């Protein structure tokens, strides 16, 4: 980012900065690749209903465990279902889980983090204790406990991943809020008679939200992988609902008969994980000045 670019953007700084960021992203090849992969995944998930050539739930009497062909692009599974259709529908599930989980974890983590960072010290200590207690469980063990209690379902996955990621976001927000708390502009705002709610919503939140959103975008692949992992173990999405994890699991059971279901279930996970990671890292490089190298 050059000095001239900054000066040049004086009349409308907001759009100038946005365009500048867009230009920076377009120069980052991995970031662009990530953006394309992410957009492709989102597109296929949103329009899944029109894309799938077959009903992903329908058991057909055609060939079972067939290799890829022009009829079935990714082949068929042990029940004769079209794997391509199931992969597309599974992407929809994965995106739903990711969005629901991150929305819940972000909003709750933000609120708790603000309370911990700005509120009284005893509340901060109490919340930290809870965060640490939650973080001390390995995700899978925690998931096992929750599944035995309320049974496996899509919502169990969302609950488990959201609860385990809340402390991560809350801790980041807390640290930010604490360092902002003693800033003079917060003091100045208090001298103007602003209460804690006004200060948090108008002044602390805009300072915190940027890095948090980038972090969340980097966490999307993590959530998708956990969803697939739990579904693979039979603790997440229940069959017959298609999920990349259940596709993998089905394929795993028949791997001696045909490798195609496992490959078809594994590749989208790899692609989407890579896509979100590339995009997230590019965004971080652009927005986080501390990590920026080309300044």
């Amino acid at each position, binding site marked *: 980012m050059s000095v001239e670019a900054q000066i040049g953007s004086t009349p409308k*700084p907001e759009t100038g900065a946005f365009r500048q960021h867009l230009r920076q992203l377009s120069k980052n090849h991995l970031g662009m690749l990530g953006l394309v992969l992410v957009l492709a995944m989102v597109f296929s998930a949103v329009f899944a209903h029109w894309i799938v050539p077959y009903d992903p739930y329908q058991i057909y009497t055609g060939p079972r465990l067939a290799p890829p062909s022009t009829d079935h692009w990714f082949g068929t599974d042990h029940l004769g279902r079209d794997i391509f259709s199931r992969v597309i529908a599974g992407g929809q599930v994965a995106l739903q889980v990711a969005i629901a989980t991150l929305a819940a974890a972000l909003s709750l983590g933000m609120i708790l983090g603000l309370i911990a960072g700005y509120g009284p010290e005893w509340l901060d200590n109490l919340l930290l204790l809870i965060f640490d207690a939650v973080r001390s469980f390995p995700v899978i063990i925690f998931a096992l406990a929750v599944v035995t209690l309320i049974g496996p379902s899509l919502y169990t996955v969302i609950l488990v991943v959201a609860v385990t990621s809340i402390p991560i976001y809350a801790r980041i927000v807390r640290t930010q809020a604490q360092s902002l708390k003693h800033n003079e502009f917060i003091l100045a705002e208090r001298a103007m008679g602003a209460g804690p709610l006004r200060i948090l919503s108008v002044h602390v939140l805009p300072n915190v939200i940027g890095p948090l959103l980038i972090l969340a975008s980097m966490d999307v692949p993590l959530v998708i992988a956990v969803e697939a992992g739990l579904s693979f173990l039979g603790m997440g999405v229940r069959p017959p609902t298609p999920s990349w994890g259940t596709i993998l699991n089905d394929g795993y059971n028949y791997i001696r008969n045909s490798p195609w279901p496992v490959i078809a279930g594994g590749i989208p996970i790899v692609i989407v994980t890579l896509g979100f990671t590339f995009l997230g890292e590019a965004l971080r490089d652009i927005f986080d000045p501390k990590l920026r190298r080309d300044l």
Partner: protein
Amino acid sequence: MAADNENILEVRNLSLDFGSPRGRVHALRQVDLTVPKGRIVGVVGESGCGKSTLAYSIIRLLAQNAEIVGGEIVFEGQNILPLSETAMRGLRGRRMSMIFQDPMTALNPVLPVEQQMIEIQYRDSISTGEKRKRAAAMLGKVGIPDPESRLDAYPHQFSGGMRQRICIAMALLVEPALILADEPTTALDATLEVQIINLLKRLQEDIGCSILFVSHHLGTVAELCDDVVVMYAGEAVEVGTVRDIFRNPSHPYTQALLECDPGRIKQKTRHLPTIPGELPNLIDLPAGCIFRDRCPHAWERCAEEHPPAYEAGEGHFARCHLIEEPERGRGTS
């Protein structure tokens, strides 16, 4: 209660302690201060003398370990010390506001100036367009050229002096009765300092509010203020008009402070004069006069008896036994 109508602020006998691991720091002791309506009162003293603490205790934005242990703060005829935090919040940004030392950090870096200036008017039930107009008008008043188009700029697009002007505009926007200015020119260079001082003076005359101006710079105080309070180690050692303090300093500390001001040194010298000695320990206070160890005139009485505020002239007070026994001063100095 005629006096209350004329005085915006009266601080009476205010004492404040800071809790620390080594004991209680008696940061303010029996401070008296009066800010009459429409006047500018300066508070001068060296670093750590409690002048900023005094300002922060008036608007009650103190650190958590601070505790007011005595006295009262009467603002517009009402003792505000017993007020709840909510009631204080109602006063801040309405009847009193504050200008801070460092304009580089006193504005939120991620919000445009416009948004911040509109935001502080949240109590007024006028339209956002109206608020924007008022913000622009106020920016024009503090000397920002082309305020309309500068409104949507971010703080980093302004220089330090411009930012302090914006801070002053924000403090004035709420039309307060009292402005607390905590060293508003310390972070600026000398040219800007003069500009900001002149600006404050002009705006004060326009608006008619009172200003409590905290500074360690004698020159700016002499330039701007009507009355002066000289603080030393948590005490108001001398109070009077600018003329009293600068022409006829009655406390040895004030005299020493004036001698140290480079602007007042007449003859050529390679040495800047200093006041010998160190600040007393504010945890374990010595008996008697607080300035005794560094005072050239000190005698036995100063070690035993804490000097009350003697009247050195009309409206001119100093905490020094010399005022009662002036012959002591001549012998030693």
